[in-house]
């Protein structure tokens, strides 16, 4: 079973990973976006980490809804509402239980990803964070490490795609050949989940 501390470790591991990879995310965002994905997410997850260190909510759902709310109020851009909605929806779907199973998490995360798709209007293949998240959620039943691999594969698979959502879509065919920064940061989020689980 997964408790609030597990979810806190997930968020802290994500913050550390975003710190490490911020420059790479920004570099990926440079040719097809506006070169701020790394610094924006870093600002958001730094706020999440600081808040969770000050007061840690005592249920898994509360940890994620708090993190989601902080991302919405600190990140800005499209990443703020999209990542914020992902975590808030997932947190809400987990409910008030003090411990949840891996199966419950998989189900809740699917609700979170559905929320992101509704908000952003993106579908798989549009070259967005969805291309890493959907395969990760599909693979979560087979374990955290499998989900991590699926997310990373999904992120790499965005390279040949043409962007249909967000700022990269304005480039049309010129967006082809670049890995999507949002799918890349989503893969980091799932990798941090595996890390929190010790896998």
């Amino acid at each position, binding site marked *: 079973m997964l408790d609030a501390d597990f979810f806190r470790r997930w968020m802290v591991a994500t913050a550390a990973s975003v710190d490490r990879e911020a420059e790479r995310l*920004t570099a990926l965002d*440079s*040719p*097809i*976006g*506006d*070169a*701020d994905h790394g*610094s*924006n997410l870093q*600002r958001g997850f730094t706020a999440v980490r600081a808040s969770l260190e000050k007061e840690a909510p005592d249920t898994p759902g509360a940890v994620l809804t708090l993190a989601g709310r902080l991302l*919405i*109020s*600190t*990140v*800005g*851009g*499209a*990443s*703020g*509402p*999209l990542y914020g909605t992902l975590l808030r929806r997932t947190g809400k779907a987990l409910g008030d239980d003090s411990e949840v199973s891996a199966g419950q998490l998989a189900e809740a995360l699917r609700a979170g990803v559905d929320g992101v798709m509704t*908000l*952003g209007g993106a579908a798989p293949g549009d070259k967005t964070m969805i291309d890493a998240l959907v395969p990760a959620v599909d693979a979560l039943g087979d374990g955290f490490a499998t989900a991590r691999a699926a997310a990373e594969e999904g992120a790499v698979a965005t390279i040949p795609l043409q962007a*249909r*959502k*967000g*700022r990269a*879509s*304005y*480039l*049309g065919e*010129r967006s082809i050949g670049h890995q999507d920064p949002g799918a890349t940061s989503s893969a980091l989020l799932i990798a941090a989940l595996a890390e929190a689980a010790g896998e």
Partner: protein
Amino acid sequence: MKMLINVPETVVADALRGIAAAHPDLTVDVENRVIVRRDAPVAGQVGLVSGGGSGHEPLHGGFVGHGMLSAACPGEVFTSPVPDQMARAAAAVDSGAGVLFVVKNYTGDVLNFDMAAELAEDEGIQVAKVLVNDDVAVTDSLYTAGRRGTGATLFVEKIAGAAAAEGQPLERVEAIGRQVNENSRSFGVALSACTTPAKGTPTFDLPSGELELGIGIHGEPGRERRAMMTSGEIADFALHAILEDMPPRNPVLVLVNGMGATPLLELYGFNAEVQRVLGERGVTVARTLVGNYVTSLDMAGASVTLCQVDEELLRLWDAPVKTPALRWGM
């Protein structure tokens, strides 16, 4: 790249402190990043709130004041502000007559303003929204996020702001804003890329001797790259794209807008070519504005925006305005 800054992290806050010092008619909340006209809320008037990433100055903070915006929310450089900012701005400017959000069509701006509208409505504030999407360089199709909002934002904010200043009701101010957007088209070119403070190097590589056609205002590359053209050739290209998309029936307002690093000498020369092309096409020009209004940091280049106006829109354009960056009639 050398920049006149302290550190990248405080660029926006530092600029806000400078705006506060320069413009006593504005109340600047540096911590929460909201710029409000000092006399807000104005009784009986609809509040106009806009915002977007920083780096486009004077948009939007420079357009706060009598006859234009009631408040502006600057985000991080090229990053949409967060919903808390807009909700705070809406609360500061609502006199009970409601608030109009002027939103440029970028995914981040749209999502954050939508979330802010929910927060404001929870507080009992009536909110309407005008989405600006005037850029003809981006093909509008089922598979894109639609056209970008660029230079027409100035026309929407000025004309809807004038309607609000007259005390027109929210639905009317919203309708006028939409009418302005629907009758506006823009096209931009870049002669150089821009450099964000956080990254410190140009956001794309543009060799000397080449230009990008159809750029947006975020340093994103355009749709096409060509060998450098003359001012006259660029005016022909840009206006062809605009007029093909919107055959003019009425007189037009013209905005020849600098992207930040192109001198006025060049912008005025470019305007001469723009006026030549419009004359050749038989388009009547009602008013012309030349200058750096919707910029992209240190990008060199320019954009042209046309707005078709009827008598009512022209009257509202001519109405008095008093803001840091736009001022006439008072």
